[in-house]
């Protein structure tokens, strides 16, 4: 208790200096937490991917479609319990800045493969009965104010024309990690329109979603599917949903790496600031350390006091920074809209923030701690008067 009192009183000795240092750590830990949250959000799709779903796409590139006839053949592969298909639509709602993912899906087979999307039965029924109906996620509905019955026009970019949809259902996520920023409509509506407007693009799908009976069958099913279409006009590449998502992340890897580097740089900078503060503090107290040593306090006890003070300052700033991360992340998520389907501070991020604060506190105390431990009493006592 006595030592704790001494540590805290020493920490508060120069209130302005300590206050500014705590403020610096607060900002650094907050920035670090937000940047880590951005990085984690980048990987959220891959991290939350199901292990019992595979994605089959054209082996050349995702932009090349696959024939609709592949579906039935994939369904016959051992270990497959369901197959569905989807097309990326890429429409624009009012203006380009209103980005959200839109998929034309075979609703009857697609949605059962995604049990994490929770749709009220009556809304599901209404959606299945309306060819121009669509399902929107809760986050998307909140952002644009979509309600059941609303008309949503999308201007096609990949599939030209203006497309009208009626919101028939709003889905919620099974948990906070579920992406509820998506827009689904009937693939049949897209296909029938294409038959009339661009017949050569009809009867093709962007990807097949393959449901597995168990995750361990993923390698064998992937190999079997791709083997089945080898040497065909449209060879396939089948991969786990996670690998498929990571493929998208890889396209923007340089940005993620840059954000990661900046997040660690922020910690490094505050570490230097904090180390300077502690070095200054220790330099001013050499006479006190010498006096304590003269009284019989060993190097270990002095180091404990210095490390304690450094950690107290670092953790005070970190506690405030961590507490502020949540509301700031919420505000950030609201501003970002559906750019990140899932944007929330994870326990892992908080652990990293605490770890960074501990590291800053320890490293900052290292030099002054060692200096105090090695201080010759007679040299320290000369610093008086």
């Amino acid at each position, binding site marked *: 208790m*006595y*030592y704790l*009192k*001494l540590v805290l009183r020493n920490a508060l000795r120069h209130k302005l200096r300590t206050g500014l240092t705590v403020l610096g750590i607060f900002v650094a830990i907050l920035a670090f937490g937000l940047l880590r949250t951005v990085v984690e959000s980048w990987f959220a799709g891959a991290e939350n991917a199901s292990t019992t779903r595979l994605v089959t796409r054209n082996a050349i590139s995702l932009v090349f479609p696959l024939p609709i006839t592949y579906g039935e053949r994939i369904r016959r592969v051992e270990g497959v319990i369901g197959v569905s298909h989807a097309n990326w639509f890429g429409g624009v709602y009012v203006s380009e800045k209103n980005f959200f993912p839109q998929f034309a899906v075979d609703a009857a087979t697609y949605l059962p493969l995604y049990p994490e999307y929770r749709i009220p039965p009556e809304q599901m029924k209404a959606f299945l009965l309306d060819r121009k109906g669509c399902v929107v996620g809760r986050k998307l509905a909140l952002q644009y104010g979509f309600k059941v019955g609303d008309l949503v026009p999308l201007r096609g970019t990949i599939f030209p024309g203006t497309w009208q949809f009626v919101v028939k259902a709003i889905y919620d996520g099974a948990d906070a990690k579920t992406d509820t920023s998506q827009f689904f409509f009937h693939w049949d509506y897209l296909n029938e329109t294409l038959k009339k407007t661009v017949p050569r693009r009809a009867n093709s799908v962007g990807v097949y979603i393959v449901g597995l009976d168990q995750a361990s069958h993923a390698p064998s099913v992937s190999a079997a599917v791709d083997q089945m279409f080898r040497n065909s006009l449209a060879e396939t590449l089948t991969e786990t949903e996670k690998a498929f998502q990571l493929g998208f992340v890889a396209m923007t890897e340089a940005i993620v790496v840059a954000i990661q580097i900046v997040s660690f740089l922020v910690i490094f900078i505050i570490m230097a600031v904090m180390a300077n503060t502690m070095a200054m503090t220790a330099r001013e107290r050499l006479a*006190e350390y010498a*006096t304590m040593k*003269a*009284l019989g306090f*060993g190097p270990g006890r002095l180091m404990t006091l210095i490390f304690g003070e450094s950690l107290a300052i670092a953790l005070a700033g970190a506690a405030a920074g961590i507490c502020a991360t949540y509301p700031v992340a919420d505000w950030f998520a609201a501003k970002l809209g559906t750019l990140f389907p899932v944007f929330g501070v994870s326990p892992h991020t908080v652990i990293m923030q605490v770890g960074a604060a501990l590291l800053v506190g320890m490293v900052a105390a290292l030099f002054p701690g060692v200096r105090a431990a090695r201080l010759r009493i*007679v040299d320290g006592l000369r610093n008086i008067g």
Partner: protein
Amino acid sequence: MPGAPIVQIRHLFKSYRRGGQVVPVLHDLSFDIAQGEFLALMGPSGSGKSTLLNLIAGIDKPDSGELRIDEEEISRLSESELADWRSANIGFIFQFYNLMPVLNAFENVELPLLLTGLGKRDRRERVELALEMVSLTDRAAHYPSELSGGQQQRVAIARAIITDPLLIVADEPTGDLDRVSAGDILGLLERLNSEMGKTVVMVTHDQRAAERAHLVKQLEKGELAQSTMPRATA
């Protein structure tokens, strides 16, 4: 009355390195300090009196020679052994008091007791007694910045005696005080010596302070020049 030797110094040498040069400070010093003695070390600046005090207090080590305190050859102790030895045997009084500014008078006096393993209640009793001895009971909650120089030095004296040490070393204890406060402090040191039987070794420039000691040893260029007994000659 002084008794058997408590400090035995034999052929003590000490030098410092300054700018690559070896500067001798103490040269072949030999003498004893008796138990219960009140010794004043005097001499011009650079004569080695503070260095000698530091060696006796165990905060510096000699180059060669023997330095026995209560039969313990302290020059052979390791740093950690010396720290333990100091906490048990030496009470320090510094010229500038050297109190911890963030601790109040009570807590400053309590500081050395943290190394003793005493419980909180025992520590409190001892600190209250020590503060009473230096007539500062009513100032226990005051911080050093709220005390006069004389009061701060009295807190430092209470801190020096709190562990009931064998030896009290005082480096210019009145050097930063006015005459009245200096008189109070010297009176306290006399009481510690006469009433509690503490051995006191004091470095001073002040002739009046030295006159309160039983024995005055003059150092010049690292050697003992002369010894006088002020009270005997008074």
